[in-house]
């Protein structure tokens, strides 16, 4: 053996150790099995409800697959095992009266999409029930494949720029906002499910989105649900979040009101707010101007609106007033995905108008509540950016 070369090798190793600092330890017997995390496909990021381009119809949007880089955007898809639903309550009892259920089949970026419309008991269940009202292909890249809906309307499923904008780190740091702030989601893409209906389901209605799939016993498990941004994640403790996600809004008050009130009390706030927080439904009245909290437009600065309502300060904001990409006036409204080839409609301004929603926000909170709420919600932040299983 050539000891001289060996000593050189060892010398290199020592240098490497010094350069790299703390060394990992080795020598254990384990397999290093990968831990594939599929949650992104069923992780609801945001829900939007606004008027369509014609002004007479309603657009329902949910986004999934958060924080996707341009490089990974070509791989985005729906989970064929998951059913994606827009649950709609038309009579104010917090029980779904109509559900638009979207399922996908096939692997790869272009999948076969099926839209069903279910009513009554079929709307309540997560079963893939109801009448098929549309079938077609999902979109890939910056392309827009319109899936026509029988009886009128359009469906889009595909990658888009994440319409959400927010300075998460400044929020996490305890509302250390700067002006301008940093849009955490700038340049990232999501998968959007956009349903454009020729007329609203009712003049006033409530919407929440759900994702569900079957467990190992074949029973449907609702993985996520979302109405308004913020509510559930900030005010429901970490160990109850999954149960909350698996619940239905009609039971929110009965099950979670005490939890929310207790959280509020511990923060020095009164219990009245619980009545505003629950049930977790995004309500909209089409006879009034649309804008958060009356529906939610793509351009609505829900963070600033919420912060101002909670703190009572009219000036507080995260310094990120708008999305990094302009929205489109026409279907599918969301901007083309970042890093994709140009050519898709990606101009125009939002059709959404910002309404005065102060009448919906009669409550105020001490400023410390937000920080404490952050602790409750850990990093799960207002817009339900559930950090459950990143990687």
């Amino acid at each position, binding site marked *: *053996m*050539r000891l001289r*070369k*060996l000593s*050189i*090798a*060892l010398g*290199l*190793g*020592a240098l*490497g*150790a010094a350069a*790299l*600092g*703390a*060394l*990992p*330890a*080795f*020598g*254990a*017997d*384990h*397999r*290093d*099995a*990968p*831990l*594939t*995390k*599929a949650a992104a496909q069923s992780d609801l990021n945001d829900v939007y409800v606004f008027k369509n381009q014609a002004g007479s119809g309603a657009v329902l949007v949910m986004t999934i697959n*958060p*924080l996707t*880089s*341009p*490089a*990974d955007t070509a*791989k985005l898809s729906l989970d064929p095992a998951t059913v994606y639903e827009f649950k709609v309550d038309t009579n104010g009892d917090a029980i779904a009266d109509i559900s638009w259920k979207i399922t996908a089949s096939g*692997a790869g970026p272009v999948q076969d999409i099926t839209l069903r419309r279910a009513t009554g008991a079929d709307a309540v269940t997560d079963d893939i029930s109801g009448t098929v009202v549309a079938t077609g292909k999902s979109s890939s890249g910056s392309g827009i494949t319109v899936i026509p809906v029988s009886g009128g309307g359009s469906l889009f499923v595909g990658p888009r720029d994440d319409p959400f904008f927010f300075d*998460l*780190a400044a929020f*996490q*740091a305890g509302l250390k906002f700067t002006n301008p702030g*940093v849009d*955490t989601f*700038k*340049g*990232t893409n999501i998968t959007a499910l956009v349903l454009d209906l020729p007329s609203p389901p009712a003049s006033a209605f409530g919407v929440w989105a759900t994702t569900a799939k079957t*467990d*190992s016993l074949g029973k449907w498990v609702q993985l996520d649900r979302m109405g308004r941004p913020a509510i559930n994640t900030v005010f429901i403790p970490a*160990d109850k*979040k999954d149960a909350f996600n698996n619940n239905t809004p009609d039971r929110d008050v009965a099950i979670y009101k005490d939890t929310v009130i207790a959280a509020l009390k511990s923060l020095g706030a009164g219990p009245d707010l619980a009545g505003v927080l629950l049930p977790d439904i995004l309500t909209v009245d089409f006879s009034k101007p649309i804008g958060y909290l009356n529906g939610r437009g793509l351009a609505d600065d829900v963070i600033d609106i919420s912060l101002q309502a909670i703190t009572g300060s009219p000036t507080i904001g995260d310094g990120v007033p708008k999305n990094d990409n302009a929205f489109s006036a026409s279907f599918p409204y969301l901007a083309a995905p970042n890093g994709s080839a140009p050519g898709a409609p990606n101009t125009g301004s939002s059709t959404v108008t910002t309404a005065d929603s102060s009448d919906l926000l009669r409550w105020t909170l001490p400023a410390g509540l937000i920080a404490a709420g952050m602790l409750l919600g*850990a*990093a799960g932040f207002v817009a339900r*950016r559930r*950090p*459950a*299983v*990143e*990687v």
Partner: protein
Amino acid sequence: MERAPGRTFDAGWQDLLGRRVVLQYLPMAAFALAAFLIFRNLAGGDAPTSPLATVDSGHSQRLAANITFFEGRVAETHDSLSYNRLTGLYLQRVRETGDVSDVRRAELSATKSLEAAPGDYAGLTNLALVRIAQHDFESAATLAREASSLIPTRTDANAILGDAQIALGQYDAATANYRLFLEKNPGSSAFSRQASLAELQGNLPLAEQFWEAAIDADRNDVPENSAWARVQLANLYFVTGRLNEARTASEAALKVFPGYPAALAAAARVAAATGDDAEAIRLFSEATARIPVPDYVAALGDLYQRAGRSVDAQRQYALVGAIEQLFVANGVRSDLTLILFALDHGADLSATLERTRQAYAERPSIAAADVHAWALYRAGAFDEARTRSNEALHLGTRDPSFLFHAGMIANAQGDTAAARDYLGRALALNPRFSILHAEEAARTLAALRGGR
């Protein structure tokens, strides 16, 4: 079941138990690579390709672009979600390139995430994954427990906790955690862990079914992960002598992820078992050229030895020695594969025995018990060796190497009945289970039967 004649290669079942899995050395391999590059001429494997050659340009480019993107994002945003994403990307790149600096980057990224969002579930589980990659299993278990207590209904932390517990020899606890993970997340990751449990329990048909289920359920998002499960199945086939199926599975892995060193090694073992040592040497050379995993380097040396190329063999053994000294110089704790190599290649026995005791004390897994038993046997402490060997076999694991060790120990004790049983079972599983020991096992068994 096909019983392939001809020569086979050492270490099939050990791979299944994870004792010699390529990935366990990947982070270290960057250091070893420095040695390797220097030793390149010295070691001189046949027809090596360039080290760390691009294995799948499309995937590698996408991974690199992803990392660049999120490095840019966190520099601007400093938020926990982007750090979490980046941590996962670093950990995947470690699996594919063995660059130890990525483990450190992952550690820093996970730490930053937890600074931005203290006590966050994803941050905790990510740091636990980093600790697993660093083989700091106690810390990994602590972090995973913390995450699990935070949100008991999410079971990613249970999977990680189970991984750490397997390495620490806490099999009942690991089984319980894997079950929780399976119930909540039935999928490729859960199935592969069930397969590992089945192997530990010696239920090879069940293990096979779970590996196949893991492959079927895989969504092929990460080619390396898809190839990994196929390599595990290939190793299972190999251990039970089903060489054609083992070859098919390793070829499938290479198709999914071209150039994958673990798959090259699996194919090399099949080649060696069918008597094609030239092909085995070529494949092991290619694997070690990509990442100089000590296991493969040692195997290459053993093949050279068998071919009568003792100079080439000594070069490979010298490289293993260099890697080992690098491990020691860099504060690496007990490494079972290197200890076994030392025991079987004439290293100083008293020092090796002490390392073995230490390894067993740190984590009393069945693999550590087996190595400890073998060291005690070499040292002539047969009764103590038998106790450890019994412990290594107490789960019912059907590992020909474990059984061979048990047989030789029993024989040394004069327990000929047990020796016949153990050696017979080892050879029945795979008559060529080890390039180094298969002949000795067969010879000893024949003598035991002849002398009856």
